[in-house]
């Protein structure tokens, strides 16, 4: 279980966009810059929302396999895990059914329930539906998925509280997630309390660089000097 941040620390993280977060994490040298983020197959379905920050509640889900007699959906375990998770929570479902891109993991009723219990977003490598209903019933709730599919299929929660992999990103239960229109990352525990400050420094440096690029001083030679090429 990850270290739980204070409300102020969480608020500071919400002020930094996810792309800047990856730069800040890279500066703190805690993992290779080629790791720690989901691939472009994972789509942000509410790109207009500010960054989502929260603790992962993980599960596997299956909606594309035919119903198996006796197999029971672990809904209760899921809702208890959300209840017991530090807040804000983010519900993460990895598809383990027969067909990931025909699976349906979340709809508006489920999301409204998650939201009521303190979740601010959901993530799946499969499909979701009811985007308009989610916007109306759980305003501000973020959704990352491979895309939208209309049918619910035979949807069940298989296991709760396990480590999952979403479009190349490994997510452990309780891990801190950060995501916006640019994509989704995990925030390493060791630097979770200092990364926002580093993010502010990155933003400030980039702002100065862009001001130089747009200024009359700009030339490739000067850019090379400043960049140390």
């Amino acid at each position, binding site marked *: 279980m990850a270290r739980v941040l204070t409300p102020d620390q969480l608020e500071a993280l919400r002020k930094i966009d996810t792309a800047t977060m990856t730069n800040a994490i890279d500066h703190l040298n805690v993992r290779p810059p080629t790791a720690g983020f989901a691939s472009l197959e994972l789509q942000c379905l509410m790109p207009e929302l500010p960054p989502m920050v929260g603790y992962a509640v993980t599960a596997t889900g299956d909606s594309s396999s035919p119903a198996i007699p006796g197999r029971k959906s672990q809904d209760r375990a899921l809702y208890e895990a959300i209840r017991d998770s530090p807040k804000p929570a983010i519900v993460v479902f990895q598809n383990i059914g027969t067909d990931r891109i025909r699976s349906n993991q979340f709809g508006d009723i489920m999301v409204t329930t998650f939201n009521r219990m303190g979740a601010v977003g959901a993530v799946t490598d499969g499909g979701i539906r009811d985007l308009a209903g989610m916007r109306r019933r759980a305003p501000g709730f973020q959704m990352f998925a491979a895309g939208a599919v209309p049918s619910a299929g035979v949807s069940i929660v298989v296991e709760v509280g396990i480590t999952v992999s979403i479009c190349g990103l490994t997510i452990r239960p309780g891990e801190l997630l950060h995501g916006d229109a640019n994509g989704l*990352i995990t925030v390493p525990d060791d630097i979770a309390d200092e990364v926002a400050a580093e993010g502010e420094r990155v933003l400030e440096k*980039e702002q100065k660089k862009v001001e130089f690029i747009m200024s009359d001083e700009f030339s490739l030679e000067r850019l090379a000097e400043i960049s140390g*090429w």
Partner: protein
Amino acid sequence: MNDHPVLRPEQLGELASIDSPTVNNAVDSLGFRDPTEGFASSELRCIYPDLPPMVGYAITCTDDSSTPRAGPGRGYQELYEAIQAAPKPVVVVFKCLGDPRRSLHMGDVMASIVGRLGAVGVVTDGGVRDVAAVRERVPGFQMFAGGIVVGGGAPSLGDVGISVSIFGLTISPGDLLHGDANGLLTIPLPIADRVAEAAKSIQQREKERVDFVRSDGFAIDQLTSAH
């Protein structure tokens, strides 16, 4: 690219006022290439579908940010110099050499630099990011990509000025690119100065046809004989 004249600004402006499907029809109508070629597949996403058509000359390169590396990667100075030296407007084309689902080729700072040097857009089979900041810092800059990915990775420039293939579209340095919400195509340089006129007569014919289809005189037998 030296074999054909660079289009005049007003000719480029005309092409930018016509949507990409109509430009594609116009290229087909001139019989210069097979109609099943010359455009990127639906895997290439237009990130800003609200923008007007992008028109520009390709500056191409290969690039990789997804392969882990120990030291620093190769910087982008050669690419920037090529953009500076090229006829404008430029479209920068990045062919991903690593894992295209996890590779990043354009963010807001680089878009600011290439935009300042005269680029109007980017094309890549890998990822881009900073979708809000690019729009704010380089207004009108278009991005075509496999998708959006957040990790900057370990960037390293490959070769500059080579022919590349982006989702089934071969792009050579100096090729004229045209793209909008409908996708991306190349306009063959030998006929580039005739495409806008051909497109306008297609737009006129399509308008007449749609007017007829929506009119009270519409009938299938009329459609086949008169249209």
